């Protein structure tokens, strides 16, 4: 069936060549740099410009590079904890905005979205100044020294989660809650049997969104990480400063793959969302 759809899409695009061409140009424009980057990560040469043959040695080199691995581990740890914090904050914010009426609600709603709108560099500098001002200690042991970055990431990730959850809450049938209570459910049962199943796809989608945003972030991380902490995007940046070796390409490719996977998962669950939404 999918194949049939594909064929008919090609047929209809042949009938309209201009549409076809503009589509192709857009795709090329968007993806050529990324594809070149990935291809040259397999290039058997110190330099990036000429193709010398296929090799996996830069991947091997990358995986034996301890600093790079540490950066990758840091990035994953930060992204995971940020995801959890963003989910908690995002869900609470969404429920607050959906369920309660309070003075200056629309102002509050606007303020929450500010981290999305304000340029990242401003947030980064703001955090730098803020942490200096409160005198945040800089010589902490490993997981604790990630805390600054995690706080900063959670701040700009949770509004995205809040938006996704809030949108899903709108379609919750309040009578289902009442029905559960009517059948003997207490507050916990209502959360477990009505709220959670309804929000589940959005929780997963929102979680992956936060994970991706945190994993990829460079600007805010740059200003909040001390000299002792390094994340994958920061490490890649510092490697580029010396020379763009295929090792940089390999590290970037890993980052791209992880990101694409989690974005695809998020989109998949969002789609699930829409399908289920048709009944409610």
């Amino acid at each position, binding site marked *: 069936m999918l194949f049939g759809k594909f064929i008919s899409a090609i047929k209809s695009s042949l009938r309209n060549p201009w549409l076809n061409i503009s589509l192709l140009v857009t795709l090329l424009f968007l993806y050529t740099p990324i594809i070149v980057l990935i291809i040259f990560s397999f290039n058997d040469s110190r330099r990036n410009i000429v193709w010398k043959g296929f090799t996996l040695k830069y991947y091997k080199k990358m995986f034996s590079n301890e600093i790079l691995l540490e950066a990758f581990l840091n990035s994953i740890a930060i992204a995971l904890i940020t995801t959890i914090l963003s989910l908690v904050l995002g869900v609470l914010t969404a429920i607050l905005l959906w369920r309660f009426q309070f003075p200056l609600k629309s102002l509050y709603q606007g303020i929450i979205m500010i981290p999305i709108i304000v340029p990242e560099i401003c947030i980064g500098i703001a955090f730098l100044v803020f942490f200096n001002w409160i005198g945040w200690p800089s010589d902490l042991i490993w997981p604790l020294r990630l805390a600054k970055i995690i706080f900063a990431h959670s701040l700009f990730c949770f509004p995205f989660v809040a938006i996704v959850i809030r949108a899903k809450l709108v379609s919750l*049938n309040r*009578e*289902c809650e*009442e*029905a*559960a*209570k*009517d*059948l*003997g*459910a*207490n507050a916990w*049962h209502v959360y477990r*049997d*009505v709220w959670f*199943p*309804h929000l589940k796809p959005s929780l997963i989608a929102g979680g992956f969104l936060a994970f991706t945003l945190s994993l990829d972030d460079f600007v805010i991380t740059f200003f909040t990480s001390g000299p002792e902490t390094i994340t994958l995007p920061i490490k890649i940046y510092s490697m580029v400063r010396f020379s763009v070796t295929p090792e940089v390409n390999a590290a970037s490719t890993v980052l791209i793959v992880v990101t694409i996977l989690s974005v695809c998962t998020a989109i998949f669950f969002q789609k699930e969302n829409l399908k*289920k939404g*048709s*009944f*409610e």
Partner: protein
Amino acid sequence: MSARLISLQGLSKSFQGNDAVKFVDLTIDKGEFFGILGPSGCGKTTLLKMIAGLEEPSAGRIIIDGLDMDAVPANRRPVNTVFQSYAIFPHMSLEDNISYGLKLKGIGSGNLKKRVSDMLDVVELTGLERRWPDQLSGGQLQRVALARALIMQPKVVLLDEPLAALDAKLRETMKYELVKIQKEIGITFIMVTHDQQEALSMMDKIAVMNEGRIQQVDQPNLLYEKPKNLFVANFIGSANCLMGRVTKVKKGRAYIMLADLNQEIVAFSYENFKVSDDVQVIIRPEKLTFQDIELPSNHEKTINRLNGELLEIVYHGGVSTFRVGFKNKNLKPLIISQLNNHDQTKDGYRIGSNVEVCWRLDAATLVPVI
């Protein structure tokens, strides 16, 4: 049989200063199919939710089977509800939906299976246990909602406009289905509806509500034949209403001078009207007859007669309705309905002809002017 099961005493609810329900007193008997009927926004759903425990009353008491429900939360009341949207849990199969309440109660799985399959028999859904809610039709969802409430064996089942979301044909079938199930199981049903036909044909007793107050509580036929006020008369079926003043009361009959018409009519006075009371005379359209003055009449002479002009004939199939206007254009024309098996219908009435409208002594109901 007619033991009192529910009594509401001075029940009130206000939302931010707006009174949705005002001092409702009501008693409902065991095994009754009780209806709460009223236009939208009259407070009937709020009343139902207070009985279920889903809204907290501002004042008054709810007593179910001798127990004051004041401190009893919704999840511990002997009451279950069929919601207007059915509120079927979308993430559970039909079977899980129906057994949800029993599982929370901790009923063992053997007993549970038996009760679920018995209940599926009652609502005729056997074989659909594994279906998901989005694979069920509106009528089936309605049965699931009913089964989910009935399986709890509550003392009362509350139904909030259960037929409103169904299409016309399905509604007709479900109407009789609901009554049949209620009579079979014998559980008290309290059903809220805005549809007077539904109420009249299904319920043992009906409370008519308007603007948060109970207007009248009676059996369907009494509501129709002996409405207590103009609101009930107009809400249940259609009604002709004439204003007048009592001139004489004799042997249970009231003589009434009709305002704007200067003509006297007679009706039974069930309530104790006194001379010079202002009253409204309510006559149902099918209780009026009329004839062309110029044509020879074979009608028996009835006691009340008014002269008017035939304005309009509307054919509805089984019945036709006629409008007869008066010289005084301030008066609303009378609506008359007749079965189309009358001989006169064939003759064909002429619009614009002068006619005489007649009704019997017992056809009219008098209600006080508020």
